[in-house]
C-alpha cells in the first residue's frame, strides 16, 4: 500500500495544483517554504512531544505502540514517553494514519518537537514520509538541548578505542545486537575497535564505549558435568566480570538529568537555613499508638507541618516570578521519595497514609500521573530512618521552603534548675527562599511546629 505511494515522487502534493497531485512528477521544487500552506491542504498533523510536567524539557520515547501505517483513532494510545518523572501513554487527538515516525524508540526529543506524523488518509502518507525525511536529521537531536541527558554521544572519552581503527581496507564487522546498542546509545561504530572473534565489534565493546556496565552475561553453560569445555566467549565474559569495576562513566537517566537541572536552578534562588531542636517524646508515644492503623511517622510530621503552615501562610508561599509573593490556596505537602536511580519530590499527601503508600509505590515504579507529582507547595524530607541527625535540603524550584528532618536521638538536656534529664530530640532544619520568607517568619513557623509536635494530640483530630 504505502510502499506503492512511496515509489512515486513524494514531492508531488507540495505543488498547489489540486488535480491529481500524485500523477505529476516534479522533482524541481522539493521542499519550499510553501510547505506550510500545503500542510493545511494535505492535512498532515504532527504528533509532538508533550510536556508531562512543568519541569520537563525533553522526553525519551520508550516504545511506539503503533507502527507506521497503522490507523489511529482519536484517543488511542500511540506511543509511550518517559518524562523526568514517569512513563506516560500519549494519545492522539486526531483520527488518521501514522504516516511516519520521526523519533524512534530509545531516542529523545525536546518538548514540542514533532515525534511522529499523522496523515489523514493513505494518499498523504508519502507526503508525510517526505516531510519526516527532511526534518529527520534535526528532530532526533542527539547533542543540543538537554544539558546532562545522553552523555554518551561523544564516544572517545573512556575506555577502549584509544588506537584509531587504523587500516582503512579492513572491514568493520559488527554483531546485530552491537548495532542495536550503538544506535540506542548513539555510539559511532566506526570509532570502535572490535574485541570479538575475528576482530568483530561486540555488544560489550559498544557498551564500554557508551560507558555502561555490562549486565550479567547471557545464560551460557556452567553445566553440572565438567565434560563440556565452556566456549571461549563465555570464558572471556566471565573474565571481565571477575575484576572489580574500575573507573566508569554512567550517563544520567532522564530522571537523574532532571534532578541535576533542578538543583542547578536552585542555585539562583537566595536561600537560608534555620535549625530547631524538637522534643519528640510525646510524638513517639503517639506514633506507637497509631502505627497499627498504618500511619507512618512521616505522615505525622507532614500533618504537623501542614497545621503549622496553616498558621504561617507566608512559609507556604513561593516566589514564582521574582517579584511577587504567590500565596498558595491550599497546603500540599510533598514528601521526597527515594527511587532507584533518582529522586522524585512532588508527592501529594493529604494525610491518608494508605493513599500515601500507594503513591510511594507508584512513584517507585515510575507510574505517577503528572498532577500527582507537580503540585506540592512545601516539601518534607526525612532522612531520620537512616540515622541521620541533621542535614539541610536544597530547595526544589517553585517552592518557598523545604523541611529536612533528622532522627530523634536521646539527648542530655539541662533544665532551668540545672538538673539533667534525657529527652528525645529531633533536629529540624528548614531551607527557605529569602525573597519571600524572612528569618523571623521561619523561626515563628518552627516554634509553632515544635509546639504541635510536643503536644501531638491535635494531630489525630
Amino acid at each position, binding site marked *: 500500500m504505502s510502499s506503492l505511494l512511496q515509489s512515486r515522487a513524494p514531492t508531488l502534493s507540495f505543488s498547489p495544483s489540486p488535480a491529481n497531485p500524485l500523477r505529476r512528477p516534479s522533482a524541481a521544487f522539493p521542499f519550499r517554504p510553501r510547505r506550510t500552506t500545503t500542510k493545511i491542504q494535505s492535512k498532515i498533523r504532527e504528533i509532538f512531544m508533550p510536556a508531562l510536567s512543568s519541569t520537563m524539557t525533553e522526553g525519551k520515547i520508550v516504545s511506539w505502540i503503533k507502527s507506521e*501505517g497503522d490507523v489511529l483513532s482519536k484517543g488511542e494510545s500511540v506511543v509511550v514517553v518517559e518524562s523526568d518523572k514517569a512513563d506516560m501513554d500519549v494519545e492522539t487527538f486526531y483520527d488518521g494514519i501514522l504516516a511516519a515516525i520521526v523519533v524512534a524508540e530509545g531516542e529523545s526529543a525536546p518538548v514540542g518537537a514533532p515525534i511522529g506524523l499523522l496523515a489523514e488518509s493513505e494518499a498523504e502518507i508519502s507526503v508525510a514520509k517526505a516531510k519526516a525525511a527532511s526534518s529527520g536529521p534535526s528532530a532526533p537531536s542527539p547533542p543540543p538541548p538537554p544539558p546532562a541527558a545522553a552523555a554518551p554521544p561523544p564516544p572517545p572519552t573512556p575506555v577502549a578505542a584509544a588506537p584509531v581503527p587504523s587500516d582503512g581496507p579492513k572491514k568493520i564487522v559488527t554483531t546485530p545486537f552491537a548495532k542495536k546498542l550503538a544506535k540506542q546509545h548513539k555510539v559511532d561504530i566506526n570509532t570502535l575497535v572490535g574485541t570479538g572473534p575475528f576482530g*568483530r565489534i561486540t555488544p560489550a565493546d559498544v557498551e564500554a564505549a557508551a560507558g555502561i556496565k555490562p549486565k550479567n552475561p*547471557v*545464560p551460557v*553453560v556452567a553445566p553440572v*558435568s565438567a565434560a563440556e569445555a565452556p*566456549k571461549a566467549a563465555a570464558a572471556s565474559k566471565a573474565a571481565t566480570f571477575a575484576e572489580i569495576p574500575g573507573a566508569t562513566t554512567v550517563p544520567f537517566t532522564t530522571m537523574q538529568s532532571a534532578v541535576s537541572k533542578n538543583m542547578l536552578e536552585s542555585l539562583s534562588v537566595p536561600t537560608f537555613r534555620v535549625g530547631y531542636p524538637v522534643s519528640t517524646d510525646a510524638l513517639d508515644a503517639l506514633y506507637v499508638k497509631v502505627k497499627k492503623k498504618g500511619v507512618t511517622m512521616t505522615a505525622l510530621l507532614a500533618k504537623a507541618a501542614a497545621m503549622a503552615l496553616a498558621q504561617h501562610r507566608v512559609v507556604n508561599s513561593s516566589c514564582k516570578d521574582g517579584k511577587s509573593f504567590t500565596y498558595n490556596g491550599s497546603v500540599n505537602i510533598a514528601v521526597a521519595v527515594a527511587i532507584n536511580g533518582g529522586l522524585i519530590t512532588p508527592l501529594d499527601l493529604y494525610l491518608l497514609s494508605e493513599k500515601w503508600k500507594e503513591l510511594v509505590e507508584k512513584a517507585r515504579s515510575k507510574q505517577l500521573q503528572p498532577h500527582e507529582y507537580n503540585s506540592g507547595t512545601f516539601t518534607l524530607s526525612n532522612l531520620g530512618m537512616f540515622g541521620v541527625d541533621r542535614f539541610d535540603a536544597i530547595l526544589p524550584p517553585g517552592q518557598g521552603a523545604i523541611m529536612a528532618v533528622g532522627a530523634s536521638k536521646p539527648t542530655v538536656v539541662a533544665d532551668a534548675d540545672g538538673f539533667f534529664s534525657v529527652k528525645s530530640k529531633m533536629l529540624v532544619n528548614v531551607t527557605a527562599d529569602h525573597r519571600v520568607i524572612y528569618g523571623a517568619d521561619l523561626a515563628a513557623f518552627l516554634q509553632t511546629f515544635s509546639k504541635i509536635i510536643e503536644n501531638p494530640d491535635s494531630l489525630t483530630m
Partner: protein
Amino acid sequence: MHSISFSTAIIAGPNHHMSDFSPPSLQFCGLRRATLRFSRASRSETRRGSLSSKLHFKKLSASLSHNGSTAKAFDYDLVIIGAGVGGHGAALHAVEKGLKTAIIEGDVIGGTCVNRGCVPSKALLAVSGRMRELQNEHHLKALGLQVSAAGYDRQGVADHANNLALKIRNNLTNSMKAIGVDILTGVGTILGPQKVKYGKVGASDNVITAKNIIIATGSVPFVPKGIEVDGKTVITSDHALKLEVVPDWVAIVGSGYIGLEFSDVYTALGSEVTFIEALDQLMPGFDPEISKLAQRVLINPRKIDYHTGVFATKITPAKNGKPVTIELIDAKTKEPKDTLEVDAALIATGRAPFTEGLGLENINVATERGFIPVDEHMRVINAEGNLVPHFYCIGDANGKMMLAHAASAQGISVVEQVSGKDHVLNHLSIPAACFTHPEISMVGLTEPQAKEKAEKQGFEISIAKTSFRANTKALAENEGEGLAKLIYRPDNGEILGVHIFGMHAADLIHEASNAIALGTRVQDMKYAVHAHPTLSEVLDELFKSAKHKT
C-alpha cells in the same frame, strides 16, 4: 445362533453348503451381508448362489485382524514407499480398511518429521520458550516473580531432543508392527506397474507386487548452489537439530517458518542472528498483517538483524582460523552487495523432494523440479498427462502442501479411494503453525489471496480482528501481545481464512480449521460456547464480531 450358522458356512468353504440353508437363515444372511458392507455384495441379488461368491475371505479376515490373501496374485493390496508421517498415516488407515499393507523404509522409520524435523525442533523450542521466560526479568517481575540467573547445558538440551526423536520413532514402529503392517527394510524402487523392488545397499533385491502403490518418500533440505555445507559451521536443519554447538552469531538464510523457529531457539540460547532473505519482506509466506506484528515482537526487540532482497551466492565454511563468509548480491540487479563474516550459517531455504532413483521412468513418470505431478486425488500423472492407474504420491514428494499432517491426511484420502470410496482432500482446511514464542498459526487464505479470489469470483470479503489484550487469560499470563484475524464472506458466512499470532496459537487454530473442513459458517460459530477464562475466547470474540448479512 445365526452367527454360528454363518461362520460354519465360511469354514466349510464357498458355494456348496449354502444351498442347504433354509430360507429364514438366508434372509438373515441377507441382513448380515448388508451390515458387513461388502461393496460388490451390496449390488448383488439375493440369490443363494451369488451370495456365497460374495463372501470374500479378504473382508472377513479384516475382522480377524489378519492379513489374508487377495483374490488376484498380488503380494500386497498396498505398498507404501517411505515410512515417514505420510506413509505411517496411510498404513494405519489401510489396515483399518482391511488392506494387506507393506511399507518400505530405506533409512529410519519416522522419516524427517520424527528424526530431523517436527519432533526434535519442538523439543528445542520448548527449551527455548522456557529459557526466554526465565530470562525475561521484566516480565516475571510484573507477575511478582524473581528468578536468579537461568542457565542451560547444551548437551542436556540436545539429549532431550534426541531422546524424544528416538521415543517417537519407536512408538511409530511399534504401532505399525502391532497391527500387522509388514515393514520392509531397504531402498524401494518402482520396476513397473504394480511391481516394486526393495533391498539394502549391497544386499540382494526382493521383488514384490502390489495392487496399489503410494510414494511417500518426502523431502530433504534444499541447498542452493554456491553454498558449501560442511555440517559444522554451514549447516542445514538436519544438523541444527542435533544442537552440537550454539554459535555466537549465526546467519540464517531464509526467513520462512523454519528459519524463524531456529532464530527463536538460537536467540533464546544466547546467540545473535542475521536473516538473509531473497524477497523484500521477511516472513513472506504469512499474512502481511500478521508478519508485520510478528516482526515487531519476534525480531525487532531481539538480537536479530536482517538483509532483505539479497541472495547468498557463496557461503564458505570456517577454516584456517577464518570465519564463515557469506557473499550477498542484490536479488534483482545481481550486483554484489555485502560480505558477512559470521560464526555459523544455517540454510533454511526450503525443502527439495526426495524422488531420485525411484525408478519413475519405468512407469513413464517425469518429475517437475523433483516433485511428482499428481491430481487432486493424489493420483500420479505420467509424462503424457495421463493418470497412472493404482499409483499415488503423498506428502512432500508431490509438493502440494509440505506439512506432516497434510501428508498423513493425503495418505488417508488415498486409502479411502483405494477402498472404493471417492475422496478429495480440502487443502484449505489444513492448518499450519509456526512454533515461535509467541506462536503463529493459520488456516485457509491470506488476505491478499482472499482479495484475489474475491475479485475473480465476484464476491465481497470482510475482515474481523480481535486482540489478545482483551482476553482475560492472556492478561492473567501477562501475554497480552497477540492478534486473531478472520477473513470471511459476509454474504453467505463462509470462512475463508483465519490467522492467529499469540500464545498457544498453534492449538487455537483448530476451531477454525474444523469449521472450514465441515463447512460451518460464521453465523453458526457465534453460538458455540467457549469455556471461561480461556484463550479460545479470543476466537469466540472473533466470530462474534463478524458481521454477516442475512
